């Protein structure tokens, strides 16, 4: 009897690429095949979390008698042939299997947090338990004291994955040492970095691991109530978390007297309402309390005075998802990955102009070169690598010249950026660094909660200067002003949002000063991105008079008869670039 398991990627990428339709196609295809019943065939279908290489979604694993083959870019109409030839016939459809780049993508990765994503069914607690899940909680509750747990996590060297990199064991110890009748543990799943989805994938791919990590944390600090604060934009994550909580309660991992240990824990979900600043821990607390999500001055730190004034530990999703694996495999195992001060692995969301975009998990200390050129497969369309942006709106840009930089908390911060929550956006020669910095500043400026003056007013002024530079009205003195103002905002803001908001500007000035100068002195955007510094014109020799640009122009700025040279009226041109995109003959010049 052959035993076949089919796994269809239903991670964020898989679903967006049509994973549900592919799953349905396999289901109906199998039903049809079984009707004919020529072959004895037992086949189970799994929906799995992110398989990593989202650029090749929908990814489908076929595991036939333990032999795993992976198909890429699967569409519903491919299901039939895969079922007949591979599932039934035993011969994989070679041309649809993943290619070398898929293997290269995985070769340098080390999976801890994502190790079960793609293997376990995120909607089944039994699947997680079969993979070793909840063994850590059992070990903790039956044979470890709170101090044992804290010491183990301290020894592992685990640091917070939410941005600041604070040692998790120390945070737990501080909270554990506070004497209070009520304490809370909160999982921060607000994932504010616009352009990153590590936490979403962890929650959707293996929600029980996050839950197990929270249980262990709660036991260590002595909390009986926990909250998961999730972005409203992640409905599937919420659905799977709710399901996971129900299943865990049914299995006796939540509620009173868990596993007969006397320890009890309940878990609630809070939906975020859309505010970046609510990822900041004190603002998040205000938001759970039902107020505007405005940060509160620290100290007092939440471990002493947090939710409703009670001692509270806030940890990021990925931090918590590491915990069960550390308990299961030991502190030394975890600490064997990474560098002296940054232990373990980190999940990054690798996007932008690389060939292989997707979620990657790598040991701390890996170089940017390995990530971008080996895992990422290099820059798409043969363009030149220019910079990589890490840490989202709080981070910075690292130039191509520093590609051998190690990716860990210390090295990135020395280079003027941060590990942050794990966003990693690769930029190529077509990206304008001034414009990228402006983009992040627009974001933080709009998201500033307005409580403190440096952030509320300072980011606004910074943005105005950036706008005038990209509009061609920059002044020589603007660069010094940006640096001075940026440093003032960094030093005087109330919370991390303001303290880090100038980073994208400061780091791009540090590494790409010449681009700023080109905007200011020559009124040119070298990457040809900043609209107001561009002129669109028709290249007479190439124009066929097809009229595509005329039809595309929203401003009526193009004129010309059919089959004759067209022209652009510069006074009416709104510089939208529609003509440039529409022209099939490369007859529009953009300078």
């Amino acid at each position: 009897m052959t035993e076949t398991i089919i796994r269809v990627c239903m991670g964020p990428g898989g679903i967006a690429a049509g994973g549900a339709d592919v799953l349905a196609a396999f289901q109906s295809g199998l039903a049809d095949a079984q009707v004919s019943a020529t072959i004895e065939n037992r086949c189970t279908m799994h929906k799995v979390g992110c398989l990593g290489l989202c650029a090749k979604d929908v990814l489908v694993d076929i595991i036939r008698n333990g032999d795993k083959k992976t198909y890429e870019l699967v569409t519903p109409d491919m299901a039939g042939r895969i079922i007949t030839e591979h599932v039934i016939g035993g011969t994989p459809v070679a041309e649809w299997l993943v290619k070398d780049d898929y293997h290269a993508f995985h070769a340098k990765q080390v999976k801890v947090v994502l190790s079960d994503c793609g293997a376990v069914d995120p909607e089944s607690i039994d699947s997680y338990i079969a993979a070793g899940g909840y063994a850590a909680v059992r070990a903790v509750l039956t044979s470890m004291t709170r101090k044992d747990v804290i010491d183990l996590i301290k020894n592992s060297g685990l640091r917070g994955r939410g941005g600041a990199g604070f040692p998790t064991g120390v945070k737990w110890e501080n909270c554990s040492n506070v004497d209070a009748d009520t304490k809370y543990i909160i999982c921060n799943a607000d994932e504010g970095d616009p352009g990153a989805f590590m936490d979403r994938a962890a929650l959707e791919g293996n929600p029980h691991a996050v839950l197990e990590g929270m249980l262990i944390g709660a036991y260590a600090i002595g909390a009986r109530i926990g909250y998961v604060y999730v972005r409203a934009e992640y409905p599937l994550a919420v659905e799977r978390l709710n399901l996971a909580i129900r299943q865990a309660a049914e299995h006796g991992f939540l509620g009173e007297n868990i596993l007969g240990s006397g320890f009890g824990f309940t878990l609630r979900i809070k939906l975020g309402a859309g505010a970046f600043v609510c990822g900041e821990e004190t603002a998040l607390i205000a938001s759970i309390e039902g107020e505007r999500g405005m940060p509160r001055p620290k100290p007092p730190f939440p471990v002493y005075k947090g939710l409703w004034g009670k001692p509270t530990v806030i940890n990021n999703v990925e931090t918590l998802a590491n915990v069960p694996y550390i308990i299961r495999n030991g502190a030394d195992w975890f600490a064997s990955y990474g560098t002296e001060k940054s232990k373990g692995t980190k999940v990054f969301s690798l996007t932008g102009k690389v060939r292989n975009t997707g979620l990657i998990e790598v040991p701390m200390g890996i170089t940017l070169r390995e990530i971008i050129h080996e895992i990422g497969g290099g820059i798409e369309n043969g363009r030149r690598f220019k910079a990589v942006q890490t840490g989202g709106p709080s981070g910075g840009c690292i130039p191509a010249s520093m590609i051998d930089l190690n990716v860990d908390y210390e090295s990135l911060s020395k280079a003027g950026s941060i590990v942050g929550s794990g966003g990693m956006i690769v930029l190529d020669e077509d990206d304008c660094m001034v414009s990228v910095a402006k983009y992040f500043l627009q974001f933080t400026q709009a998201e500033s909660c307005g409580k403190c003056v440096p952030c509320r007013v300072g980011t606004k002024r910074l943005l105005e200067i950036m706008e005038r530079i990209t509009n061609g009205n920059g002044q020589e003195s603007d660069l010094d002003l940006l640096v001075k103002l940026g440093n003032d905002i960094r030093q005087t803001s109330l919370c991390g949002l303001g303290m880090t908001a100038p980073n994208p500007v400061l780091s791009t000035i540090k590494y790409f000063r010449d681009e700023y100068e080109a905007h200011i002195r020559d009124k040119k955007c070298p990457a040809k991105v900043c609209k107001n510094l561009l002129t669109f014109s028709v290249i007479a020799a190439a124009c066929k008079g097809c009229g595509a640009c005329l039809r595309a122009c929203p401003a009526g700025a193009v004129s010309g008869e059919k089959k004759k040279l067209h022209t652009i009226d510069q006074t009416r041109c709104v510089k939208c670039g529609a003509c440039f995109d529409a022209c099939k003959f490369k007859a529009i010049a953009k300078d």
Partner: protein
Amino acid sequence: MNIDIQPFIDRYRAADGNIITLLQDIQHECGYIPEDVVFALSDALDIPASSFFGVATFYTQFHLHPRGKTIVTACCGTACHVKGAERIIQAAERELGVTEEHPTSEDGQFTLERVACLGTCSLAPVVLLNGEVHAKMSPDKLRREILRFKEAIHD
């Protein structure tokens, strides 16, 4: 808006007395946060209306005006931004006749919204049409999708 506010009050009292949850409840029922409902609840619960509006205007999730039947959500996250989200938004604005200040079309059919990252960055640029993910968008592809929705309305 003609709506019975008693269920809101009951659920508010039964839960944890949290204004955000209450507003989420109102928006779930009404599609947006109607002014008169807020004033009625303010009287009934003896909470200043300013507390409601303070919270409602702080979070991007809450809408103080009715929204269109079809919601076009364009991602402006970083990954989508570097892959040309700006041009997609421009195309949508032109196609729907809306602006950032007036995001709902004259006929009340469409609302264009921006969001910072939908968590599907590898498929950037991404647009949601009534919550359904459309990956690797281009201005042209979006125009065609919108036309499909427009035709469906007229049928």
